């Protein structure tokens, strides 16, 4: 099976159905993020102050789940993994720089772009302020892109995947990613215990829990 409603061909008669499906996927995405606690800045920011590592746990579990799905389905010939990977080319340097700046923005704002939408939908005015900032920042990038010269296309490696980089079969890399995620989960649980113990021993916690 290939994609039923590939986004690039949504100009045909299936377009309306495709856009309707996009709304449905968005509803599911927003609902799950909200239920994970990602509409709340304090919960998200727990990740960066060590008191609540939910962001890492949810993200890595989601990546492992979806990765297993695409690797297994492509392994049995039901999914064109390489075709979809072509839409995620690597431009190493702008991705590293963009990641560092986006991470800084995430902690300054309290939300990432997707979670700010969920926060706004659940009534958080600061979520709305973040969305406004993202609108301005993304247009600002378009205005300034030419001034950045060739940097936005530097480190161009095309469609370059971890299995290609490591020279290993996708199944082996998938197993390694699962192992890495399990280690990260053990580390996250440990950090939460250490930080909780330290907060309990240093007198009253600075932040009152609602």
């Amino acid at each position: 099976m290939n994609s039923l409603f590939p986004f690039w061909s949504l100009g045909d008669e299936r377009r309306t159905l495709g856009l309707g499906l996009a709304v449905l996927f968005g509803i599911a995405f927003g609902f799950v993020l909200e239920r994970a606690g990602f509409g709340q800045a304090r919960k998200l920011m727990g990740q960066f102050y060590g008191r609540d590592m939910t962001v890492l746990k949810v993200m890595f579990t989601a990546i492992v789940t979806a990765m297993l799905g695409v690797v297994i389905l492509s392994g049995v010939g039901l999914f064109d993994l390489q075709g979809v990977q072509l839409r995620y080319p690597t431009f190493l340097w702008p991705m590293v720089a963009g990641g560092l700046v986006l991470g800084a923005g995430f902690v300054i704002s309290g939300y990432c772009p997707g979670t700010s939408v969920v926060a706004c939908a659940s009534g958080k005015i600061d979520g709305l302020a973040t969305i406004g900032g993202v609108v301005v920042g993304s247009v600002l990038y378009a205005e300034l892109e030419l001034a950045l010269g060739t940097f936005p296309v530097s480190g161009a490696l095309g469609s370059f995947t971890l299995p290609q980089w490591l020279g290993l079969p996708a199944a082996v890399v998938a197993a390694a990613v699962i192992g890495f995620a399990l280690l990260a989960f053990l580390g996250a649980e440990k950090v939460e215990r250490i930080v909780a113990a330290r907060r309990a021993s240093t007198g009253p916690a600075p932040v009152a829990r609602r």
Partner: protein
Amino acid sequence: MSESARSDPNRFWNPYAAGVALGLVLLATHLVMGHGLGAVTASYRLGVATLDTVAPGHVRSVPALAEVVRQRSALDHWLVFEVLGMVLGGLLGAWSAGRLSREVARGPTFGAVPRLALAASGGVLMGFAGRLARGCTSGQALSGGALLSVGSWAFMFSVFAGGYITAYFVRRQWR
């Protein structure tokens, strides 16, 4: 604040269960749409659409902006519809859990105005960075990460690094 008798507003799904659910949504999107989820594209297109109503000539003179309005309206894109769905899904989730409340999330000793200023400033940085990196935590780290793209993984580790480097300097907004 009114407490619902049947549900605790601070009760969330188990993070690993939420991760599996999120992963299944992402997998379904990849399978059906041939592309992962995203968040910055919709904001960008909203910005271009707004600019197009006040300065259409300017939009057509900047290549990156012109490309968005070349064939259709800037808002006529599936990722805009996906984010509209996110608003509905987030609203449904918050409402059904008794978490729907109009407020500025911040620490008890931090002012609402500086908090909103930080929220907007962080948003500007993320909008810029999300376009530079061709995706955000959703569109690059989650969506490309699950496809094992090297750039997506480099992006994801950079996001965590950038966050941890910055966290100390803005800790007061949660105190």
